[in-house]
Structure formats: structure tokens, C-alpha cells
């Protein structure tokens, strides 16, 4: 998975530089699509489908892993 922890943590939405995100990274690597935009920390609209996911930030647009799986 590419989108894990940028400026903001994609799992918990907290600032990536502060706090412990080990649990977040584990969840993102196993069973969770990103829920927060790594650039701005906004909650994204996420669609999971059988083979992939698409996540859309109102400011930073869409990311997807659909092509990878």
C-alpha cells in the first residue's frame, strides 16, 4: 500500500510527526484503506470494492489502488 503516513496519518488523522502510529501502520498494511488525506488530514470519502479502493479528498483529489490488485 502506498498511502500510509505522510504529513498526516491516513489511519487516525493525527500529525504523522507526533504521537505513535505503529498500530495505525499495522492496520493500514493489513486491512484498512486510508481514511484521512495524508496531505491535509481531512476525512476522505472512501469506496472499497472487491479488488481495490478509491479515496477522495475534497482538496487533494482521488487516490486509488484499484490498478494494483
Amino acid at each position, binding site marked *: 500500500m502506498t498511502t500510509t503516513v505522510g504529513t498526516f496519518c491516513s489511519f487516525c488523522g493525527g500529525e504523522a510527526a507526533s504521537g505513535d502510529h505503529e498500530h495505525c501502520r499495522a492496520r493500514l498494511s493489513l*486491512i484498512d484503506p486510508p481514511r484521512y488525506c495524508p496531505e491535509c488530514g481531512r476525512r476522505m*470519502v472512501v469506496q*472499497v*470494492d*472487491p*479488488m481495490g479502493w478509491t479515496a477522495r479528498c475534497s482538496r487533494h483529489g482521488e487516490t486509488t489502488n484499484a490498478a494494483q490488485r
Partner: protein
Amino acid sequence: MTTASTETATGTTGEGDILAVAREQVLERGEGLSEAQVLEVLRLPAERLTEALALAHDVRMRWCGPDIEVEGIVSLKTGGCPEDCHFCSQSGLFDSPVRAAWLDKDRLVEAAKQTAKTGATEFCIVAAVRGPDEKLMEQIRVGVAAIRAEVDINVACSLGMLTQDQVDRLAAMGVHRYNHNLETARSHFPEVVTTHTWEERWETLQMVRAAGMEVCCGGIVGMGETLEQRAEFAVQLAELEPDEVPMNFLIPNPGTPFAHLEVPQGPDALMTIAAFRLAMPKTVLRFAGGRELTLGDLGAEQGMLGGINAIIVGNYLTNLGRPAEQDLEMLDTLKMPIKALNDTL
């Protein structure tokens, strides 16, 4: 029935060892375990897990056969649900990061096509609702028709509680199976959901059955239920006689009232699988959500060799699964054939 008995730490009771009893009663005669007997299995010490799984596997092979039923699921309407199921990240009543989303018809059909490519025979369309409104019923009508026209796959739905009219309409659309989980034991349900009752769910299931659709009904293990309640749940499911029981393991999701609960432990989950198979020897028992966290790759194989005879491949509704190819490779390695579509009609 085993009631008051002199239980020991090894699972031996006044009526004999529970797995020996199960071998005769369940494997030979096809009669599921009673609540007290299921509880005995759940209480077996860890060193007897391998034996329990092996017996559950023998029961599955004897009464269900070697085929594995593969299914894919998709969320048509995500999030914003008015109900308060405490495990669910899609309830609009909790501070969950899951935002509302709708899948359009083209992506729905595409998801069905991708699912069919894996060899799956079932494709389940799920909506996070208390029950369907007219808008959703219309989307389902259009979506089911499009899938049935373009994809060779059985269509299932999971749309919450239904009215009799909605049941009849779904059956008329050709919906093959309807999923509605009782989720947990009746006695534990009020700790899990307060916005509707276990009995309301039961009523929907009865209507679904009467209309001729297959009944899919399971639940989630690890929501703070006692072992007694887990045994209670197994026999309540058995009493319903569902065509399929999906077994989920709790994923503690952020923002939900159950966020603080522990992920169920692997051995505990596996013993539960064995016990459920011994309670329901003839039902399709499906691996559903949470197995990735609870069991990992090795545990998934143990489950397949411990009573499971169906899997959801690919992703779930809001969580991701292992890549479908990985599960298909596992079945190949285990030499477990995938059930073909013409066997399901």
C-alpha cells in the same frame, strides 16, 4: 443431552469425552451438538484444538462435501446508517472516520465481473441501512437486472430489515440469497445493538425463507460475549437452519463503542469455528471479516481444515481482505475444489 456432568480439564464428562460423543453424534449421524455440548467444545483446553479441528473437518467433508463456495461482496451504500450496532464503523451515530458513499451501477456491475473472474458463485450487494427505502429498492432492481444480464453469478443482497412487500420484490428480482446476521446470542444482543431487536432480525429471516430465497445468517465472534453465550448463539443459528453462516471476528474499529475491545485470539477463534461446525454439520460455514487480524495466513489454513467450507475473497465493505489470488492459491495448495455455478442452481 449433556447437562450436569463431571467435567475435567481435558473435556471428559460424565457422558464421555465430548469429541468422542461428537464423532458418533455429529459425524456418524449428522445431528448437531446441543448448547451444553457446544459449550463443552468451547471449553476444551488448547492442546485439544488440533483434534477438534480435525473432527470438524471430517464432519464438513462427510456432510457438505469437498467443494468450497467462493463469494465476493460489495458495499453499494456505505456509512451514515441510523442504527447503533456497536461494532460497526458505518453507523452514523458514532464518530467513525467512515464517510457516506454510494457506488454507481457501472462500478457495481464491474465489481460483479471481477468477483466472477475469481471463480466465485455468489456476489452479495450490501447497503448500510436499517432497511431499504424506495430509492434503494429501485437501485437494487436496476443493479440486479444488469448483473444478471451480464455476469454469470448468483446475486445475494444484504439490505437490513425488510417488509413483506420488499421480501416479495427481492425474490421476484431473482435475488438468490439474503444476508441478515443475528450477530450474536439473543441474550447478548442488547449489549451490542439498542436501536432494534434480535427478534426483528429473526422476523426478517423468516420472511426471507418463506419467500424461497436462501437464508444467510451469521455473526461476529469477540464482542464481549461469554463462552455460554457463544454456545447459545451457535444453537440459535442451528435452529434457524440457515443455508449459510458467515463467521466474522471482531475488528475493533476507531470511533465505535467496541473500539477498545481486543482482537479475538487465534486459538479461541479456531475452537469457535470447530464448535460451530459441530453444531451445524450441514450448513455452509463461511470465513468472513476479521480473519486477517485474528488468524493471519496460517490460521486461515487451519480454519479451512477445521470446518469452514466457504470464503469471502477480496475486500469487505469498509475493510480490506487478502488479495483474492492469495486465497485462491491457498485453496489450490489445500487441494480444495471451488464449487461451480451449476452446482448451486
